[in-house]
């Protein structure tokens, strides 16, 4: 009779998970302490040297930035600026991501079309997209539309390219598993191609987040009447370095929050994959 798997497969990964978890958590905790210590050291150094080694007019200092942030928060302006910028970024990201994933998928699946368009796709991918920003203001006006379109453009390219590549990378042997069963084209796309490409698609979606936010802000730099980008530009023109740096800090925090959310989502969706195999991933903590 057949033997059991336990005796056969001695190399099966069955480690004592508790031991690993406790080692991991103490390591992670230590890592975070070092990270916080580094950040704090930089801030303290900045605070102490500003006004002594260099002018705090040009370089500001953490306490002044905190003060400025507190004031704009209590006046309600910070919230309203963040809301305006985020609305453009999120709407643009949504449009761009849907269009990018769908088109990337469809074009990659139509093999002949993919072959014909490949050099063009590479060429367009190579242009500095931010250089299109002024043109977008001309096309779509100084309102929110031009910012949405800019964020959508950035997101579109990153998600499109990643999806296109991911679908192109698919292992024919995996497709054959379904083909042998006489599975229809739609079934193969849904049950084999899509999950096989999902690490690429998700990586594209994650990479696009900071780009979408930056695109909205660049749009506001060029022409706008409100939003974080507008506020930063206004501060800079008034030589208010504290205001500029406060705005940059807010952007940084926003990008970090979104990255954290998508990191969690990615870990959940790709839990079937050893993290070392993830394309474009594994760089976040």
């Amino acid at each position: 009779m057949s033997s059991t798997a336990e005796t056969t497969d001695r190399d099966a990964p069955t480690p004592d998970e508790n031991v690993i978890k406790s080692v991991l958590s103490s390591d992670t905790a230590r890592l975070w302490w070092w990270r916080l210590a580094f950040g704090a050291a930089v801030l303290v150094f900045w605070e102490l040297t500003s006004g002594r080694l260099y002018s705090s007019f040009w370089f500001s200092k953490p306490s002044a930035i905190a003060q400025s942030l507190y004031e704009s928060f209590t006046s309600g302006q910070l919230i309203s600026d963040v809301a305006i910028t985020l609305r453009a970024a999120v709407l643009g990201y949504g449009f761009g991501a849907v269009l990018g994933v769908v088109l990337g998928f469809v074009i990659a699946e139509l093999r002949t079309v993919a072959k014909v368009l490949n050099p063009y796709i590479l060429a367009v991918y190579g242009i500095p997209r931010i250089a299109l920003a002024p043109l977008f203001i001309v096309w779509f006006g100084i309102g929110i539309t031009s910012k949405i379109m800019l964020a959508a453009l950035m997101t579109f390219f990153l998600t499109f390219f990643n999806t296109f590549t991911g679908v192109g990378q698919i292992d024919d042997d995996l497709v054959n598993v379904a083909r042998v069963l006489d599975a229809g084209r739609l079934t193969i796309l849904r049950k084999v191609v899509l999950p096989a490409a999902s690490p690429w698609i998700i990586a594209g979606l994650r990479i696009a987040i900071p780009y979408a936010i930056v695109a909205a802000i660049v749009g506001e730099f060029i022409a706008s009447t409100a939003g974080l980008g507008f506020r930063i530009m206004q501060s800079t023109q008034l030589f208010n370095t504290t205001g500029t740096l406060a705005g940059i800090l807010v952007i940084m925090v926003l990008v970090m929050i979104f990255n954290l959310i998508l990191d969690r989502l990615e870990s959940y969706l790709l839990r079937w994959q050893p993290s070392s195999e993830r394309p474009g991933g594994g760089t976040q903590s």
Partner: protein
Amino acid sequence: MNEQAVIAVEHVEREFSSRGQQVLAVDDVSFDVESGEFFTIVGPSGCGKSTLLNMMVGLLQPTSGRILYKGDAVRGVTGEIGYVTQEDNLFPWRTLRKNVEFGMEVRGVATDEREERAEAIIKRVGLDGFQDRFRHELSGGMRARVNIARTLAWRPDVILMDEPFGPLDVQTRLQLQTLLLDLWREDRATVIFITHDLNEAVTLSDRVLVMTRHPGTVKMVYDVDLERPRDVFSIPTTDTFREVFDPLWDELQTEMREDAEEDSIGL
């Protein structure tokens, strides 16, 4: 043509183009496989064994000749022949259980029955307790078990197997051979098995087909008259086994030697 043949291969040839040249991979191969038979094809590396299987399952078309499945010419994937490939090709995004269910899912087996059958076959191949593991959490031997289980699960009449135990260590291999013979006896499916290991071929089969080196053609088909059930651990040491094995080995080693002399791509 044999009346009982579930698969009939008739004068099949297959060419591939390589660097602008037509290369013959399979040369005028004919044989019948009877229903319920354990039929093994053995031959040196690169003799077109896998090409033959790909044609039987319908993924490839013969350049000339034809293959009949239950009397009808195979003109593409029929969806009725199971195929256990050399690589496990498990879907890494599906758990073990979901991989086993895949075939039934595609073929529209109702959820309740699907889960029940998957559970039964998983237990049968000795993987109870590992149902929710992903591919990277399974060992090579476990993956080979899942690879076989997921084909058996949708109950094809004919199962093609392309060196499914190739990369495994000897102990795991013998255990899986035992399991395979048990499953075959229970299911009474027709198995067409490919290996380059003559020991394995004689141990498992009713008949062994020896192929020549490239371009592959049929050298001989040999009846293995050994009693069943067979104990794969001890059968190679018996005299009756040697009586079958030795003449076959004489044929096969000529092919392997000539192969090695002509080019040194390993056996």
